[in-house]
């Protein structure tokens, strides 16, 4: 490189500015849509320091400038009422004077938006304002004059429509000329002064007509009627289950068979061609690629669930669900929106955990995320069907139904306990959990932002949860690959399970389950693979008895006979009570390693470890209780 080139490069580097900007605004104001629009795929999710509150951080590339954007949790004020809002307050307080705060003003809630703007100005930050929802505000009678608004607030203001992708260029231009904090930043000191300032600004900019009854009001007259709203919500949940079983189910099976079939065959052929040892073939096929297949197979399900969540949130419908179901969950310290993940969990716990992101506060997300694994997913149904048909042949259906009732009772009980032991976000008062919710306008969701949001969420799931899933998948393979007898070699797929470390671990674990009546290595082996996936429990039980997995779990044939013998023997003649205890254990302990991966992505490793350990302990206690009571009957 010549001296001239080097100098030019240095000058270019000096000219290319790096700046920081914070996105601040009400919930549902379009902040995240704007963030996705500006940063595209140049973004990542981090946790705010010492919390499980997620912040999206991304880079917005402009000519000659790179803006590092942080999408802060939505808030109505810098006087926080939740951990999420504390994060926003702290970010504003901790920002440097050179950082710019981009405050989004909701045209349909201008007064409270201006209040938030006033608080940010008071914090002494450089501010640019963006007005969103102007089209909706206009329909409701607010005609905004941006020039008047700028003059009244002293803040450079642009019109934005993140859903339609307009206003980004004006915002970029405004950022480059954002002035230092104006004199009003020190003029508004107290709440009442701030209210006065807002009122004064409003008189200068807003032309109010009598607010007409809006389209949303008319829709709410129907949808917030309990006789219509609750059945409609149940119909939405039913449609979701239908989509996940009729559309996602076959796609999941196809993807998994594609990976475990042709793709695995192709990879093992290639490895054989380069003379790879047998154990490596097994490690790749049964450990690594089995994990990849598991992760990929969840992709169709996640796309459907993320699309559904986006539609429910963006349309404004989810807030109405919260209103209708709030009373049901109030006792658990949850708002009505938690009903969505809890109900979805009865289909599959993994997307249900993802759905906790729709909850507005960190505590509610965590509490719901800890309860979702107790929702009895469809994978557990196969276990219930098998054991109920073997041990309760006359009333298997009633027993299976009872397991779903038990699932609901565990959720309610644990919700009650956790709500009282986890501490409150704000120091407890009688009203701190009472419903206070601003209803967003109903809107037609737009396709491009929806696809963008789905792609970003799926990528986060694949990258973050996928890593944990692969690691655990290889760990389980390792247990099965190491032989305990010299007659077999490492990684030999033909080694019987009882002659591997897996078999030895199962054997050594079995006494732990003796008080629950199933202290038998076949049962503990099934529980170990059940940690990977509950679908594997029946297959493992069959394999450990040297049988093929039955086509129909309700007609288990020889497996049923062997199970009856094992459970009867291990329980001292109380096989039915032991089988019931086994079902309860399967209901309560960790659902699957994909759920563990997703839990870790959402709540971090420490919470996941505690949740996993806690659910194992609870499962053991409940199973022992069921068996000990059952044997007395």
């Amino acid at each position, binding site marked *: 490189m010549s001296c001239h080139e080097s100098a030019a490069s240095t000058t270019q580097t000096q000219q290319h500015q790096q700046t920081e900007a914070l996105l601040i605004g009400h919930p549902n104001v379009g902040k995240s849509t704007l963030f996705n629009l500006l940063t595209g795929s140049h973004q990542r999710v981090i946790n705010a320091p010492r919390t499980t509150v997620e912040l999206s951080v991304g880079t917005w590339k402009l000519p000659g400038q790179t803006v590092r954007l942080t999408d802060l949790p939505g808030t*109505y*004020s810098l*006087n926080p*009422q939740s951990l999420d809002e504390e994060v926003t307050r702290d970010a504003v307080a901790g920002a440097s004077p050179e950082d710019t705060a981009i405050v989004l003003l909701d045209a*349909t*809630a*201008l*007064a*409270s938006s201006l*209040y938030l703007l006033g608080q940010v100005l008071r914090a002494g930050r450089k501010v640019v304002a963006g007005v969103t929802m102007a089209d909706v*505000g206009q329909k*409701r*009678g*607010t005609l905004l004059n941006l020039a008047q608004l700028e003059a009244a607030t002293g803040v450079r203001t642009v019109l934005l429509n993140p859903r339609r992708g307009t206003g980004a260029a004006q915002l970029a231009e405004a950022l480059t000329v954002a002035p230092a904090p104006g004199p009003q930043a020190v003029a508004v000191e107290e*709440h009442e002064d701030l*209210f006065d300032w807002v009122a004064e600004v409003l008189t200068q900019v807003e032309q*109010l007509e009598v*607010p007409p009854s*809006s389209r*949303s*009001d008319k829709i*709410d*007259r129907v949808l*917030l*009627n*309990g006789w219509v*709203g*609750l059945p409609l919500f149940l119909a939405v949940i039913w449609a979701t289950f239908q989509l996940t079983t009729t559309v996602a189910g076959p796609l999941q099976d196809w993807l998994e068979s594609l990976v475990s079939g042709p793709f695995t065959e192709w990879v093992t052929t290639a490895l054989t061609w380069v003379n790879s040892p047998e154990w490596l073939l097994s490690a790749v096929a049964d450990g690594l690629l089995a994990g990849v297949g598991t992760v990929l197979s969840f992709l169709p399900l996640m796309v459907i669930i993320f699309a559904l969540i986006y539609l429910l949130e963006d349309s404004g419908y989810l807030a109405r669900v919260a*209103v*209708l179901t*709030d*009373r049901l969950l109030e006792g658990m310290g949850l708002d009505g929106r938690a009903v969505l993940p809890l109900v979805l969990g009865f289909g599959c716990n993994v997307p249900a955990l993802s759905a906790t992101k729709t909850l507005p506060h960190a505590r509610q997300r965590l509490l719901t995320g800890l309860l979702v694994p107790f929702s009895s997913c469809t994978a557990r149904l196969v276990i219930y069907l098998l054991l109920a048909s073997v041990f309760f042949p006359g009333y298997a259906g009633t027993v299976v139904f009872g397991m779903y009732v038990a699932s609901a009772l565990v959720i309610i009980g644990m919700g009650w306990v956790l709500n009282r032991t986890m501490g409150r976000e*704000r*120091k407890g*008062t*009688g*009203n*701190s959990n*009472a*419903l*206070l*919710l*601003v*209803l967003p306008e109903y809107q037609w969701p737009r396709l491009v932002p929806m696809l963008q949001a789905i792609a970003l969420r799926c990528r986060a799931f694949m990258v973050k949860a996928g890593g944990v899933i692969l690691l655990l998948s290889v760990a389980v393979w390792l247990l099965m690959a190491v032989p305990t007898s010299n007659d077999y070699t490492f990684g030999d797929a033909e080694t019987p399970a009882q002659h591997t470390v897996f078999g030895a671990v199962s054997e050594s674990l079995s006494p732990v389950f003796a008080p629950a009546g199933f202290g038998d290595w076949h049962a503990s082996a099934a529980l170990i693979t059940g940690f990977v996936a509950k679908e594997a429990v029946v297959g493992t039980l069959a394999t450990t008895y040297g049988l093929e997995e039955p086509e129909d779990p309700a007609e288990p044939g020889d497996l049923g006979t062997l199970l009856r013998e094992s459970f009867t023997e291990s329980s001292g003649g109380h096989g039915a009570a032991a089988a019931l205890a086994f079902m309860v254990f399967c209901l309560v302990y960790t659902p699957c390693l994909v759920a563990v991966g997703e839990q870790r992505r959402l709540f971090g490793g420490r919470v996941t470890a505690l949740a996993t350990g806690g659910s194992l302990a609870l499962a053991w206690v409940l199973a022992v209780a069921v068996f000990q009571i059952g044997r007395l009957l």
Partner: protein
Amino acid sequence: MNLGNCPIGAALNVTELTGLDALEVRIRELGIRPGQQVQVLKRVLFGRCIVAVAQQRIVLAPKLAACIAVHEMGESK
């Protein structure tokens, strides 16, 4: 009279907020404060009420609504 027992659809003036504890500041920040004109649009399941404050629609639990005293516009307090 408070937001929990006032007539639906009537134009109301907020007169006082009492017993709201930590949520009082937030409720005031959302625009429900003495002197503000509000209207209860609907009461839904379990007594939750939807209140119109300018263009905003705010849902309040019954125990919050009962803490917000109002009087009908045009009536003396």
